């Protein structure tokens, strides 16, 4: 049911961990839903120079966060914000329909980390858009975590 790319990310996940000196941290999901993603980013100028993740969740959730953290590295904050869940799905070579919400979680975790960075800089948080997990309830994104 999963693509080879997803299986590769599951057996060899990339960018696992937490940045000790993170400039922004985003966490989305809840244990009750069975998915939690925490992504931390390092920002220099307006570019993301490093991104790491920790995920509690299914194979699709781990693969989505592994892929998404790789996709944002080297991107400007605006470019990283523009990455959609469909971009993550495409990069993974597709996800089963029931698992697409995992890619939404990855997008949201990236955005939450960017907003955490912006808030720390005294800037306004950008509008998050709809949350993809648990049918849109039960898991507020928490950009204030750090």
């Amino acid at each position, binding site marked *: 049911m*999963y693509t080879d790319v997803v299986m590769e990310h599951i*057996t060899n996940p990339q960018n*696992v961990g937490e940045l000790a000196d993170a400039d922004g941290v985003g966490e989305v999901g809840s*244990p009750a*839903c*069975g998915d*939690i993603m925490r992504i931390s980013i390092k920002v220099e100028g307006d570019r993301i120079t490093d991104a790491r993740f920790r995920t*509690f969740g299914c194979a699709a959730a781990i693969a989505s966060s592994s892929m998404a953290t790789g996709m944002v590295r080297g991107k400007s904050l605006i470019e990283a914000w523009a990455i959609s869940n469909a971009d993550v799905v495409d990069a993974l070579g597709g996800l089963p329909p029931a698992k697409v919400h995992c890619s939404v979680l990855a997008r949201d975790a990236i955005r939450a980390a960017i907003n955490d960075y912006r808030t720390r800089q005294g800037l306004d948080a950008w509008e998050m858009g709809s949350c993809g997990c648990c049918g849109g309830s039960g898991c507020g994104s928490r950009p204030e975590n750090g």
Partner: protein
Amino acid sequence: MNDKDQRPVYMDHAATTFMKPEVLAAMAPYFSRYFGNPSSLYRFARESRKGVEEARSQVATALGAEPEEISFCAGGSEADNWAIKGVASALREKGDHIITTAIEHHAVLHTCEALEKQGYRVTYLPVDEFGRVDPGDVEDAITDRTILVSVMTANNEIGTVQPITEIGRVAHAHGVLFHTDAVQAVGAVPIDVDALGIDLLSLSGHKFYGPKGTGALYIRRGTRIESLIHGGGQERGRRAGTENVPGIAGLGRAIELATADIEGHNRRIAAMRDRLIRGVLGSIPDTRLNGHPKQRLQNNANFSFRYVEGESILLLLDAHGIAASTGSACSSASLEPSHVLLAIGLPHEEAHGSLRLTLGDANTEDDVDYILEVLPEVIGRLRQISPLTPACARVPEAD
């Protein structure tokens, strides 16, 4: 560990079993050689009919029943549907209340929910932390409108064996029929329908090394029950449709093999299961065994690993050649984890982190060794990734 170390280990026998060669041999004549319709009168039909009736005797013998009390059908789900809907419909004048439990298979639960929509009332009894139903709760739930008590012999997820003798006794003391879903129990729990006080019993061929798409419902003589499938007069008018003769022959042979030496079989499987449980609990911290420590199926081990999610465990085990299953929601289309694990009081995150390993006749001590080698590494890797894992339980990451 790399791919060349992989070895195929199937430990999901509660999902389905392989079919034994003896069973296939028993089925073989009925595909082409004896292809006649058992309902026909000519000689082509005679052997088919004999095959069906021999299988009926084999099933009856295995359950301590009479052959005419056995009706063949297409599987465990049909047998459960038939027992519950058939009794509910036949006894509508007498009452409209059914008692079952929160941990039944969906073939029972969803059938009861369908009946609720038709105006029946259903009590779903709770279970204790080990998954056991209290017969006292059954007694308390019985009213003068109760027509059926349905409690599974053993649970498919956590393996807990229910006190069905006591439950049957309570039901009968109040003049209420007792149905048990024995789909997981046949070949593991000795069954004598008279000694256990069972009026209706569901079973499924592919759970005990028989063919898929075969099942049977035991109906105690004199029990009022409506048919589910209407049409021709097969199965003494109880279940229409030309008989699945090869499947029925296979089911008969399979149940004969499965019940020939239950004690010896259980002893061998339980020894491996116990070593598996001890090994897993001893080598992986923050792990619990789900289900009853003693009153459980000989082949069932069900664990919850904290901080990790079941589907990712399955995928990593599969990458090592190991087949298992989980109660995590992420392995199904729904967002809710296993109703059984929630019913025994597990918090959602521990229900999501469950793994079921069910042993079978082809498993060996080497299979147990292999799982004890692979599983700690798999759980360790996922805990390394998880944000829920306490820092002290992780290996520091190299940059």
